[in-house]
Structure formats: structure tokens, C-alpha cells
């Protein structure tokens, strides 16, 4: 597999959310607004790339039995870095994402990539794999957030996109039930498209 394929597979073909069906917790929780989805996507991508890099470097020194706790500590370290950075530079994003920033630790995508890819591959492919998976995760988040923000709030990334006089947003999409419904329909759409081909 070429390096380009390692990078691009996570974006569409093996999209972690829409195809592999991992990491639903942050996907549903932060997608009320596109800006939150971008923030969560960037934070998760940073953690994915750094933890993949670190794990690819140290994997062969870690004994088999204790590898999962070791990976979790490495991931948690980078999550703490991200948490402190967001607190320092973007208090608004920190308030919007709240508890879901430390919960990046238990995002199954990250531990999944560490175990399935970074521990068995050299550094460069691991970085590209993390970057691709992170972008795929961000991509899925932004699609779901776009649906929820446009219908639930009438805006996209803060801009008013529905110019209809007297349009009142469908609050349902901004609330938790809308998140479940939106993601359910998206995954069904992807699977219907796959069946057709």
C-alpha cells in the first residue's frame, strides 16, 4: 500500500464514523454547531497523529501484556495537552465542548488505530494514517453538524443561510433526538449507496 493510500483510506473508504462505526459519543454530542464539530475534529486529529507517532516509536519496547494501559497513558497525555491548549487559547470552544474534551481519551477510534495500525507499522505511515483518520472523523462530524445547524438553527458556521422570511428553526435537530436521527439516516445513506454500487 502506498503512503497516499494510507492517508486517504480514512477519509472516505474506511471513514471511522460512517463506515467503521466508531466514536459515536463525540460525534453525537458536539455536532450542534459546525464550529464545535471543527474544534472537536481538530483536537481529535491532533491526538490521533501524536499518539500514532509516539506509539509507532515505542511499540516494540512495550511488553505484549501491558500494551493497552501503556497506549491509554500515551493517549491521555496528548489529550491533556489538547485540553490545556484549548483552555488557554479558546475559552469559548472549551465551554462548548466541556466534558467531551477529556473524553477524547475513550474515543475508540484512537485506541483502535493504535492497536490496529500504529503498533505494527513504521512512523511515517502511522502519522499519515492518523491524519487521514482524523480528517475522516472531522469530515463526518462536519456533515452531521451542517445538517443539524442548518435545520436546527438556520445558520451554517454562524452565517444565516436560510433567507426565508418567517423561517423558524426546527429545534428538534439541535436537541439530542435530532443527533441520533441525523446520524442514523447518514449511516443508512452510506450503506444504501454502497449496496447500489
Amino acid at each position, binding site marked *: 500500500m502506498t503512503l497516499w493510500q494510507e492517508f486517504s483510506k480514512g477519509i472516505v473508504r474506511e471513514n471511522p464514523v460512517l463506515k467503521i462505526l466508531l466514536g459515536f*459519543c463525540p460525534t453525537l454530542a458536539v455536532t450542534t454547531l459546525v464550529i464545535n464539530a471543527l474544534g472537536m475534529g481538530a483536537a481529535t486529529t491532533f491526538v490521533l497523529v501524536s499518539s500514532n507517532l509516539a506509539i509507532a516509536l515505542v511499540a516494540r519496547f512495550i511488553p505484549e501484556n501491558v500494551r493497552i494501559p501503556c497506549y491509554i497513558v500515551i493517549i491521555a497525555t496528548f489529550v491533556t495537552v489538547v*485540553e*490545556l491548549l484549548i483552555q488557554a487559547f479558546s475559552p469559548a470552544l472549551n465551554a462548548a465542548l466541556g466534558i467531551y474534551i477529556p*473524553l477524547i481519551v475513550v474515543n475508540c477510534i484512537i485506541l483502535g488505530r493504535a492497536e490496529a495500525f500504529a503498533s505494527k507499522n513504521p512512523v511515517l505511515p502511522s502519522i499519515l494514517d492518523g491524519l487521514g483518520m482524523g480528517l475522516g472523523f472531522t469530515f463526518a462530524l462536519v456533515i452531521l453538524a451542517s445538517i443539524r445547524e442548518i435545520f436546527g438553527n438556520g445558520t451554517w458556521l454562524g452565517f444565516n443561510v436560510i433567507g426565508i422570511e418567517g423561517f423558524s428553526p426546527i429545534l428538534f435537530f439541535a436537541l*439530542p*433526538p435530532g443527533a441520533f436521527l441525523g446520524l442514523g439516516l447518514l449511516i*443508512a445513506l452510506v450503506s444504501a449507496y454502497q449496496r447500489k454500487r
Partner: protein
Amino acid sequence: MNDILAIIIGGIFVNNVIFIKFMGLCPYIGVAKRIDTAVGMSLGVLFVITLASTITFFINYAVLVPFNIEFMRTVTFILVIAALVQMVELVVRKLSSTLYNALGIYLPLITTNCAVLGVALLAIKNDYNFWQMLAYAVSSSLGFGLALIIFAGIRTKLDSADIPLPFRGVPIALIVASILAMAFMGFSNMVK
């Protein structure tokens, strides 16, 4: 006393971990296929969340706060939870084979359950005292169990339903969750 009651109602219904806070979705989608496995998983989660929240609560106020290293909270808590789940598995296996048969297979799955870390962190973030924390941990896990068992009940019916092919599996589970979440929204504003 009133605040404890508010926390309990809040934890089970108003801020249900699955439907409102979106934590612990993996077991919700993966394990809740039959009612008896849902009950087993719920009991395991109740046990681990309560124990983990209690231990992390003491670690936070006895170690992290006095030494002024609260920024280590995420790393410490996840390690404690991972170690705790392993230890509980060993202890349960030695002590009671009935309990192990009932809970054993669910325990390893619980480490990666974000509800455990989430509840432990939220109890600290909300500045709960010990009893409030305990009420919050127990009621959150009861809310988790309630959601899991309701969904397992619905899923046994779904098995015999004629669902369009692309919706089979995860999509229909999420749409059922959407309808259940709408029902749970009815409890909002019950407690502040």
C-alpha cells in the same frame, strides 16, 4: 436531602447518560441484543461506575488537589479505571463463580465505556460532596441500565420486523434511540 433527590432524578431521567449525554453508546449498540445480557451489563456498569467514582473522588481530593496537580486528572482517572476494572475482574473471579459468570464477560468491555470516565469527571466538575457524588454515580448507572434494558426489549421486536436493508443494524438502533431520546426529553426541566 432535597439536592440528593434532585441529583437522583436528574441522573436517571433528565440527564440520562445515553439519551441526553451520549455516553456509553458502544455497549448500547453492541451488547443490548437480549434483555438478560442487558441486565448483566447494567449490573456490571452500576458496580464499576460506583466504585470508580468513589475511588477517583478520594484520589482527586486527597492527592491531586493538595499537590496542585489537577491537570493530571484525565491521565490519573483513566489509569485508575483501567486498573480497577482488571482488579474487579480478578476479585470477582476468585470470590464468586456465580457473580463471575453473570458479570465476567462484560467487565473488560467496561474499561472503554466513556460513561465511567464521564461520570467520574462530571462528579468533580460539578463540585459534588461525597454523598452527592455517590447519588450521582448510582443514579447515572441506573439511567444507563434503564436505557439499555428498554432498548434490548425493543430490539427483540425489531428482529422480526421488516426493516429496509440499508437501515438494518446500527442505523435503526440510532433511530430507535432518537425516538427514545424524544421521550426522555419529556423529563427536562423536572429538576434544575
